[in-house]
């Protein structure tokens, strides 16, 4: 079998633990941007998206993979063992490279009122988390409104997110990745354009 597979975390245990901690922090404090590393991502993924994938996915978490990320499919399957599904409704995670995932979220499950934890988490690779459009975030985890700067979200993102936030406690959680940086938008957060 010929393959261009590359290794995962340089230190599998500590790498995944450190990344998990950062994802937790990012979810708990929306708007804060964290830098992570320890992994050489396969194209077309950025380092941050690859690290989050390695940390959160395993054989029990079906993944919907953006067709644009097809080149990374073998790497994800080998290192995480996650079943890659073509049916977004059955996935627990979605890895997207483009904003098109946000068009009605491709039918990803928003969970139910009885079991909101069954919703999907979207790992979205964006252009930058340091330049671009400002968004003002409010909600749990923030004393005062926080500003998150993102390049690579659709122009009507605030409206898209309002519809997602309105479903609370149901809804999609979003992890934004760019380069080696991550930020998270849990469904509990309200977003308006800055």
């Amino acid at each position, binding site marked *: *079998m010929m393959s261009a*597979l590359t290794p*995962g975390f340089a230190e599998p245990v500590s790498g995944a633990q450190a990344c998990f901690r950062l994802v937790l922090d990012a979810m708990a404090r929306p708007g804060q941007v964290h830098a992570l590393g320890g992994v050489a991502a396969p194209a077309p993924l950025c380092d941050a998206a690859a690290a989050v994938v390695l940390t959160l996915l395993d054989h029990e978490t079906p993944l919907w993979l953006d067709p644009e990320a097809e080149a990374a499919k073998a790497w994800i399957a080998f290192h995480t063992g996650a079943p890659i599904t073509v049916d977004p409704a059955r996935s627990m995670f979605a890895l997207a490279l483009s904003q098109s995932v946000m068009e009605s979220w491709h039918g990803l499950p928003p969970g139910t009122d009885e079991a909101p934890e069954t919703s999907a988490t979207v790992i979205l690779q964006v252009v930058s988390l340091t330049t671009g459009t400002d968004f003002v975030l409010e909600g749990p985890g923030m004393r005062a409104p926080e500003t998150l700067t993102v390049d690579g979200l659709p122009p009507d993102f605030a409206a898209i997110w309002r519809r997602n936030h309105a479903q609370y406690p149901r809804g999609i959680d979003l992890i934004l990745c760019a380069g080696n940086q991550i930020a998270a938008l849990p469904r509990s957060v309200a977003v308006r354009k800055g």
Partner: protein
Amino acid sequence: MTDRVPVETRRQRWMAILARAPAEGLMTLLNEAGGAPEYTVLRGPEGGLVMVRGRAGGGGAPFNLGEMTVTRCTVRLDSGLVGHAYVAGREPRRAELAALVDALMQDPERAETVEARVIAPLEACQAARRTERAGKAASTRVQFFAMQTMRT
């Protein structure tokens, strides 16, 4: 002849032989077969547990016998060939060497030499050990003539 056997079956055979081979033996034989090429470790070697299951009862329902430790490793040669190995116990070096030989066996240029110098000697050695153990066990076998007679 070997071409008619599916590659999966042939690979299962050599992977089974490699999984039982000791690290020192593998290293020595590999050096005789041209040595190890440059490679990257993709995963491991890392230890873990696997559940050993058997069939119990007349219905053949699976039965969890217990867990055993295994070490697994995956390597990629610079040529792009990927080799995997799972070995019993906690022996990282053994798993890495077995994965390396598995990758080499997929290389058409080296497969023949590695088969002759590494796989074949190991297979012969393992077969001899199996025969010896079977012989020792057979010599302690007790024949219950009385019971056999009663049954007929």
